């Protein structure tokens, strides 16, 4: 298998400038792959898949009723990000996360940004992610979002954009860590020649971030990871992170509110819990405050949380900033709170809620991507250029019926990375989700999850829609 025949075509390719000419940062990798004997790359690809399955890096498939696990499809050819490029992304992400946290603290307390007419209150109040019970909350240090997984994409002209912020329970970081482990055994020589920034200290940093949330008077705070349970598709990750941090993995039924504290049921009696890394959505976390039919949550948790006797990461209510209408205001937030220009651009976003913009959207449905404001994971979406006239018609109706709930963006042509498909390299579209931790200060894990659309020509990279992953190499120099 050689790169000689690979043609990036009329796309932005992360590894190649043009056919036969790799980007400078990718040269050692391309040389190494080209030097492998015939069949060796496929062999290593298989070995990597076996290794991932054995490590249990799986997600659950429900359809067959047997509770089988599969590995997330994984491709050996990594995405490479140069040190210069990463420096900009890192700075931009820090700026964005800081502004978003200031926004969350403000919107649930003083609402200065509303009073100063930067964002209309209607839009905040009508967002499903806005949680009234969180008004007046004051999380430790004023930080609401401790773990962020921002989705970045690169358009045809090489320009980076922020696609989504994912401030609730972003998943996928376990793939970053496990993919790297596999890649180090697959291309050890390449790792020796290229200076690739390590990602391994993520779990340690995460634990540090969580410990930082406990009151300083506690010498040995108890941190737990809260999972919905083994049937959740990301259960492997919950279990993996708990194991890597050396903390308990708990389910809602393990926890109980007693004596004004959150406690877990142990074989030696109740034991106090100080910090929860929750991987359950806000609205399921306390049935007495949010969804009363939730069996996953802990009755009374909200009251303990409000009184500051337990810390949550992320804080409740962060979903407001995941609303795609609110997202369109993030550049304004950065200017408003930080007095700086945004380093990372938003994808240009049209709001159906604004009359003129709606007209533009309806007239250009065949060119735009329409998204529901509150959905994620590639659901509730219309990719205009690939849709049938009937589908467009249906979305036009939906938009007119509830304009607040839809936004539209130009169809980006996501950058591509060569990917091993049926014995040859094909360019596949990718995005990038770096993970950002906000404890004492903001840390961006150098790398992130590169998700790849494995269906030919597809732009949808979500694992639920036929996507896979690649390792992401951020170079040190």
């Amino acid at each position, binding site marked *: 298998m050689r790169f000689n025949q690979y043609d990036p075509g009329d796309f932005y390719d992360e590894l190649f400038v043009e056919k036969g000419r790799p980007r400078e940062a990718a040269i050692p990798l391309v040389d190494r792959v080209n030097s492998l004997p015939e069949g060796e790359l496929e062999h290593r690809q298989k070995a990597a898949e076996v290794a991932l399955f054995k490590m*249990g890096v799986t997600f659950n498939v429900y359809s067959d009723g*047997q509770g089988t696990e599969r590995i997330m499809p994984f491709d050996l050819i990594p995405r490479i990000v140069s040190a210069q490029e990463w420096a900009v992304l890192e700075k931009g992400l820090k700026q964005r996360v800081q502004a978003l946290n200031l926004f969350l603290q403000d919107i649930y307390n003083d609402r200065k940004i509303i009073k100063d007419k930067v964002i209309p209150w209607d839009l905040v109040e009508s967002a499903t992610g806005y949680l009234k019970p969180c008004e007046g909350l004051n999380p430790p240090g004023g930080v609401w979002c401790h773990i962020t997984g921002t989705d970045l994409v690169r358009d045809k002209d090489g320009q980076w954009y922020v696609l989504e912020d994912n401030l609730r329970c972003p998943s996928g970081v376990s793939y970053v860590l496990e993919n790297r482990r596999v890649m180090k055994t697959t291309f050890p020589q390449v790792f020796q020649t290229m200076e690739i920034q390590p990602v391994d200290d993520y779990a340690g940093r995460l634990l540090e971030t969580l410990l930082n949330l406990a009151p300083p008077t506690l010498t040995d705070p108890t941190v737990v990871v809260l999972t919905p349970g*083994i049937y959740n598709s990301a259960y492997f990750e919950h279990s993996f992170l708990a194991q890597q941090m050396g903390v308990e*993995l708990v389910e809602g039924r393990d926890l109980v509110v*007693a004596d004004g504290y959150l406690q877990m049921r*142990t*074989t030696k*009696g109740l034991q106090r819990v100080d910090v929860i890394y929750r991987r359950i959505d806000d609205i399921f976390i306390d049935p007495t405050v949010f969804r009363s039919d939730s069996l996953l949550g802990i009755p009374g948790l909200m009251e303990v949380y409000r009184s500051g006797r337990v810390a949550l990461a992320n804080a409740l209510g962060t979903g407001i900033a995941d609303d795609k209408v609110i997202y369109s205001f993030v550049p304004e937030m950065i200017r408003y709170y930080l007095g700086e220009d945004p380093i990372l651009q938003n994808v240009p976003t049209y709001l159906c809620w604004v009359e003129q913009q709606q007209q533009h959207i309806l007239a250009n449905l065949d060119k735009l991507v329409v998204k529901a404001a509150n959905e994620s994971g590639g659901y509730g979406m219309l990719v205009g250029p690939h849709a049938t006239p009937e589908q467009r018609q249906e979305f036009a109706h939906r938009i007119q019926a509830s304009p607040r709930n839809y936004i539209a963006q130009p169809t980006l042509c996501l950058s591509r990375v060569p990917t091993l498909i049926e014995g040859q390299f094909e360019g596949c579209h990718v995005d990038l989700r770096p993970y950002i931790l906000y404890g004492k200060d903001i840390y961006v894990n150098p790398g992130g999850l590169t998700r790849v659309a494995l269906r030919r020509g597809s732009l949808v990279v979500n694992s639920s829609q036929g996507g896979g992953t690649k390792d992401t190499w951020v170079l040190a120099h």
Partner: protein
Amino acid sequence: MLSRVADSIYWLNRYVERAENIARFIDVNLNLLLDSSLGEAQQWEPLVLTSGDLSLFRERYGEATAETVIQFFTFDSGYDNSILSCLRSARENARSVREIISSEMWERVNDFYLMVQEAARTQHPHQWFEFFNNVKLTSHLFAGVMDATMTHNEGWHFGQMGRLLERADKTARILDVKYFILLPSLRDVGSTLDELQWIALLKSASAYEMYRKVQHRISPSGVAQFLILEREFPRSIQFCLTRAEQSLHHITGTPLSTWRSPVERTLGRLRSDLDYLLIEDIIQLGLHEFLDKLQRQMNDVGNKTFETFFALQPVS
């Protein structure tokens, strides 16, 4: 340790041991069948009867034959105590504590489940002996892997308790099967057939060779004595209860021969009863009556384990 986690490790081991013992039940019966002049129903129905699920069986299958009973106990996914169901439950429990147990343990129990699932799909009667033997071996493999790869901590001791209590219960049931088969034909007592039946019984508990080393002659009271009271044989009830009690005291930290929780008292009392019991006392009481009472007491130990460690309720 989280109560739920302890509970899962306990049941993981109980279910694996239960699957093994079901395989033993059926194995002993298949063995007996080859040498016996009894009718098929007489041979298989007592097996279902000792499981306590006879009415459920009749409802689902009607008549007890080798095929129906084996189907019921082995592959019936709608029956909670079939080998297939046990392994599904074992696997679910293992999956929920994967970050606590060793990955080797997870792999073993996962493979175990897949093996039985595959057998359920293909089902070749001529492979029955081999299949039941595989179930026994794989259960041993799991226990060995757990012993060699998991820290012998609190969780491990909960696992031991689960395995040993299950084994003691099932050894009692295996003996009880014999009692039921004997009932209709007391004239066979002391005959060649009778001796063959006792040998088959010992073999199904992997006890035949070890028994010979201690007792030489096969006698009903000798076999009962060995399977109930032999202190050094790892499938005897006495052995299981003694080891389970040791694990229990490892968990609680209470010195042996004393108690602080109801489960310590119940298990300690049961074990010390057996310590001073003679087989003659048991025969006099009636083997079936004795085993019946013993099983109820062991159930009580199980319930009290649940109450003490797993079903913690905050004081309101």
